[in-house]
Structure formats: structure tokens, C-alpha cells
């Protein structure tokens, strides 16, 4: 191997925005000059678009089975995905997929031969299933977004305590596994069962409640909820839940129990801490309450809402005046598909429909693209707005709740349009 391998030719690099059809001639951006710029040095820190400081986070490659990630917490491991990852493909690679664990003991050694998934409680026939048992069952595949309910907490105003996430506590993967319905049918759910409760290998700190989440029986039996053993065609990274993860399409990732090992059929509604007290939001459509309100009706944070993000332009970036600019991003419909995405370059005063990329299923990311024909000099507030197939549209006003959960408002990226000549004039 040569000491200084030549960089790959430009043509060999994957095109950005690879999930969209090639731009037609009217939207084509002129090719850059023939001489490729030298590769930029690898960044060591990321700046998140939070409501206040501190906004900088180190980038780390120190975590097993993970590439470059934004470090939120070492212990327990909490890692955020960089926005540029979402710009490259609507499927988030396993080694760049976000990670979140609660305080306590994270499973770090799992023997795939000895691992068992137990099904017990109000069932006819309790089960203890090996991975081989599960892999011998009928397989299904679903593309779905795993998003932490606290994604974007760092943008809440007034600020709230907790992991100060930017927008990268989310990822979209193709999950392969067995429908939960088939496992429950094998166990024989007894009459009177109201909920199924799920638990993984993670252990809380001594004295803290065990982490468990429950789904209503009808939801658990809907055929879309699966027990997955593969993520994007490979075994899951340990930090993403190897060897089994519950996949609840359209619902927040706190239900997606990692290293799933225990399913219990309950004949009364689950009253454990993480259903009855923790991870709850105002019981209204937008999980919204006026800051400081006490004693509001609450419900477990569950169904996701439509969201959208700009992925190829970041805050503070400079655009050239009078030169067409392509703005690109991703959208999600929440517990529905993406019906449309609209784009604004004037802070939401006027909107134009964005072009949508390939539909890879209602629960996955969908790429979108818009064009600013002639950016005028000055500051531009770029926004995208998703409307789901369920008819829900992102709003301009952010929701607020004390947990910093379920943010889903229209997000903004601010850029400056100025020519290099104008800048050098200003400096003189």
C-alpha cells in the first residue's frame, strides 16, 4: 500500500442527496471549476443550533461499533448524529446512528447463544425464545425512524434540564425481525390482557425504577410492531440494542426497548414509573403547555409528529447573491407519511412546494429539495414545513413542556447572502 494514497477521484464519491432524482436542467447548479479543493481537515467539534450556550460538543470516535459521533455523555453513552449524515442518505448508517441509555448498567457483553426472550404473565404458554428460534420464524422488514422524545431539547425556551440535544437524536433504518403479533400468538394471550410490558437487559442504578414501557394489546397486535434482530441488514451495534430491539413504527424511541429480553402480558394497566409518572407530556395534540403551568393533564409521550430539517446548509453559512441555490433536507410524517414539504426563504412569509424524493415507506425519512432562484443580498431565514398524510402541519410556534419532549415546530437556518467583493469592500 502506498504511503500517501491518492484521494479518490471526484466522480467516485457518492453524490450528496443520492435519494433524490437527478436535478433537471432548470435546477442544475453550475459545475465547480475543474481543480478540486484539497480535502478539509476532519472536524473535532460540532456546534449545535441550541437556544443558548454551551453549544459546542466534541466529536468522538471512541465508542465501539461507532464512527464519528457528537459526544453528549460518556457514561451513560449518549451520542448524537451530525446533520451532514442525514444529507447523504435517508437511511442512517449503523455506525453513525444516535445512541441513548439511561443512568445505570448498560449491557456490554451479550452471548447470542444463551440470550433468551421470555414471554410471560397473562399467557397460556410462557415462552423462552432463543435468537435461533426467532430467526426461524416468518421475517418481516420495515423502514422506520427511531427518534428520542427529547430530540431538540436544547432548543426549548425557556430552557429545561436534561440532555441538551440538537436535532440529531434520530435515525432511520431498515429493521428486520419477527412481528410481535406472531410471538404473542404463539404464547396465547389470555382474555383480560390489556397491555404488554417490555423490558431490556439494561439495569437502573440501585434504588431507581426499572426501565419498562407498555403498549396496549391492540397496538402490540397490529402487525407493524416488530422484534428486530437486524438493522440495515446487519446485527445491531451493541449500543443500539443488540441482539433484539422492539420496533414501534411512528412512536418515539423510548418505546423501542434495546436488548429486549422480557415481555409480560398485563391484566391491569401498567403503573410502573416510566408509564405512570416519567416521560409524560401535556395530554393535547401538540404536547404543549404554557411555561410554569402546574398540574396539567398528562399522557405518556408516544406518537411522533411531522418534522423537517434542512441538511445541506448550516447556520451562518454564506450564499452567493444572484446565483441559484439548492436547499435540501429531510422530512418525516411522524405516525403518518409525508404528504408535502413547503420551503420558505423569507422566515415563513411566503412558501413554495419542495420537490420530494423517493418514498421508502410512511415511517421513514423522505428527502426534499427546493431552489432559491436569485438570493438577494442580506440575511435569509430558511425554513421547511412538513404536512403529514394525516393532515398535521408543523407550526411556527414551538410547543413547550417541562420535560423538553416532542418538539416539532418549524425549524430555521439563517444564512447571509453576500459576494466576496462586497466583503472585501467592507473591510477596506
Amino acid at each position: 500500500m502506498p504511503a500517501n494514497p491518492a484521494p479518490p477521484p471526484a466522480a467516485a464519491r457518492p453524490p450528496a442527496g443520492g435519494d433524490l432524482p437527478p436535478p433537471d436542467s432548470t435546477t442544475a447548479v453550475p459545475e465547480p471549476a475543474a481543480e478540486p479543493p484539497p480535502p478539509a481537515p476532519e472536524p473535532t467539534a460540532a456546534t449545535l443550533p441550541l437556544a443558548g450556550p454551551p453549544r459546542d460538543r466534541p466529536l468522538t470516535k471512541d465508542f465501539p461499533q461507532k464512527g464519528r459521533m457528537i459526544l453528549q455523555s460518556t457514561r451513560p453513552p449518549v451520542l448524537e448524529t451530525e446533520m451532514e449524515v442525514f444529507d447523504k442518505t435517508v437511511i442512517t448508517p449503523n455506525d453513525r446512528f444516535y445512541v441513548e441509555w439511561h443512568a445505570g448498567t448498560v449491557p456490554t457483553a451479550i452471548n447470542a447463544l444463551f440470550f433468551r426472550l421470555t414471554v410471560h404473565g397473562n399467557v397460556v404458554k410462557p415462552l423462552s425464545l432463543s435468537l435461533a428460534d426467532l430467526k426461524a420464524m416468518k421475517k418481516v422488514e420495515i423502514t422506520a425512524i427511531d427518534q428520542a422524545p427529547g430530540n431538540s431539547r436544547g432548543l426549548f425556551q425557556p430552557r429545561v434540564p436534561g440532555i441538551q440535544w440538537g436535532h440529531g437524536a434520530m435515525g432511520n433504518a431498515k429493521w428486520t425481525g419477527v412481528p410481535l403479533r406472531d410471538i404473542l400468538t404463539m404464547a396465547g394471550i389470555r382474555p383480560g390482557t390489556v397491555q404488554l410490558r417490555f423490558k431490556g437487559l439494561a439495569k437502573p442504578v440501585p434504588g431507581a425504577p426499572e426501565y419498562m414501557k407498555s403498549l396496549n394489546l391492540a397496538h402490540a397486535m397490529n402487525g407493524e410492531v416488530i422484534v428486530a434482530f437486524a438493522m440495515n441488514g446487519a446485527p445491531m451495534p451493541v449500543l443500539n440494542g443488540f441482539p433484539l430491539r422492539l420496533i414501534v413504527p411512528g412512536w418515539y424511541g423510548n418505546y423501542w426497548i434495546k436488548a429486549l429480553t422480557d415481555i409480560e402480558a398485563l391484566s391491569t394497566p401498567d403503573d410502573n414509573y416510566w408509564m405512570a409518572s416519567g416521560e409524560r407530556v401535556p395530554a393535547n395534540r401538540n404536547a404543549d403547555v404554557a411555561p410554569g403551568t402546574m398540574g396539567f393533564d398528562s399522557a405518556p409521550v408516544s406518537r411522533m409528529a411531522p418534522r423537517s430539517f434542512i441538511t445541506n446548509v448550516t447556520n451562518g453559512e454564506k450564499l452567493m447573491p444572484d446565483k441559484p441555490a439548492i436547499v435540501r433536507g429531510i422530512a418525516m410524517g411522524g405516525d403518518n407519511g409525508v404528504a408535502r414539504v413547503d420551503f420558505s426563504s423569507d422566515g415563513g412569509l411566503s412558501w413554495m412546494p419542495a420537490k420530494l424524493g423517493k418514498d421508502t415507506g410512511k415511517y421513514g425519512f423522505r428527502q426534499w429539495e427546493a431552489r432559491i432562484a436569485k438570493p438577494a443580498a442580506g440575511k435569509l431565514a430558511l425554513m421547511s414545513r412538513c404536512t403529514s398524510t394525516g393532515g398535521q402541519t408543523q407550526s411556527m410556534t414551538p410547543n413547550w413542556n417541562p420535560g423538553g419532549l416532542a418538539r416539532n415546530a418549524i425549524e430555521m437556518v439563517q444564512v447571509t447572502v453576500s459576494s466576496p467583493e462586497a466583503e472585501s469592500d467592507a473591510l477596506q
Partner: protein
Amino acid sequence: MRFNNLLYCGIALGLALSPAAVAKGKHKAAQPMTGETARIELPPGDDVLPDRRYAEAADRNCLSCHSTETILNQPALSRDVWKAEIDKMRTVFGAQIDPDADDGILAYLTTINGVRRDTWR
């Protein structure tokens, strides 16, 4: 320290682990066990907070569950908000925090890096 989850899982399920496999798992955590074991090593993280003026109480009471990054990344919040967080850690999550430590922890959280953090409530 970290528990060997396989060991505990194995005991819970009543699996017939061979004595050799148990011993290996218990005493030599870095060695692979029999079968296809997925094993990872996580970076340890820091054991002390920077800015030592008030850090001792925070080191002693917070770092067993939260890493330094999580604490240092918190926004400016009032003493009342942080007091409620400490109470939640104590009553909900079983944290053994000596009541005498509250003032020291609050002093750290409201003055991280010397900035007075009481902008809300």
C-alpha cells in the same frame, strides 16, 4: 464497575453455564466467552468536574450516575429548578444524597465556569 450482564441474565434464566464459562466471565471480563459473544468496552469518562471552587459536592453526588459532559452542558437554570432536580434524584431515583450536600451541589450547578445561572424562575 460494570456488571457482567450475561452472567446475571444466565442465572436469571437458569441456564446451565459451564463452571469454566462462568469463571471466565466473572474474572476476565475482557476475554470472549464461549459462543458468539458480542462484547464492547466503553470509554470510562472523567471522574472529576472542572472549576474546583464548588465541585467537591457535585463530584461526590452527581458523577456516579451522570458524566461530566452532561453536567457541563446544562443551560442556565435557577436554583429552584436545580433544587427540584436534586429532590427528584433523591425521591424517584434513589440517590443517596446527604441533605447537607445540597448547598454545595446547587452552588456548582448555578455557577458553572463562574457564570451566574439564574435567568428563569
